[in-house]
């Protein structure tokens, strides 16, 4: 099982902020997980499309697309940050 978090505009567009899921067969990286999520339907396809300017973190550290995933990881997807 991994935990996946969604923040801000992404959370609203997908209608979910957090889920637990079993790493699907053949998914071993952040890029693979994103492609997997993009197959869930229209909003997911649009928001997770490769062209979208999304950032991701693995275990609360900003992570590149080829970062490997393992059981127990906390993965987060979010738009570019706009703090302060």
């Amino acid at each position, binding site marked *: 099982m991994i935990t996946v978090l969604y*923040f801000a505009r992404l959370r609203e567009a997908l209608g979910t902020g957090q889920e637990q899921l079993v790493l699907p067969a053949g998914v071993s990286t952040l890029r693979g997980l994103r492609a997997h999520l993009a197959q869930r339907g229209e909003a997911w396809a649009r928001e997770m499309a490769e062209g979208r300017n999304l950032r991701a973190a693995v275990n609360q550290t900003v992570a590149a697309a080829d970062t490997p995933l393992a059981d127990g990881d906390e993965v987060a997807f979010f738009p570019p940050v706009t703090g302060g």
Partner: protein
Amino acid sequence: MSVRVQQQDFDISAEITAMRSGNPKIGAIASFVGVVRDVNDGDSVSTMTLEHYPGMTEKSIAAIIDEARGRWEVLDALVIHRVGTLKPTDQIVLVIVASTHRGDAFAACEFIMDYLKTQAPFWKKEITPQGGRWVDARVTDDKAAERWKT
């Protein structure tokens, strides 16, 4: 060194007083307060909501402070960032850096503030008369952060 993400407002006097009383070597305290403006990109803003990533936000700010300590003499530093619903003239963010000399205090404070705007996981949604709108990342903010990479 201290990082707080909270809904409540803050009192810069109380924070500076606490910092001063803790270290008689402190000679210079630079600080920054960010305030909600009533306009952004030409639209009037009535309220805004700030969201963060509990855990990662605090960790990333602590890492920013550590990086500042590696570059300048920092005797103490504090970051308070508010989340939740805020309205124009409300305080959003406080950065305080104490040092022996003012040059270090100013540089570290501005450095931390630039990274807070560009790297720390916060997302801002503005509520205008036309509805809610998630704020886009600003190119000028990215440029401000890039200054520090050389």
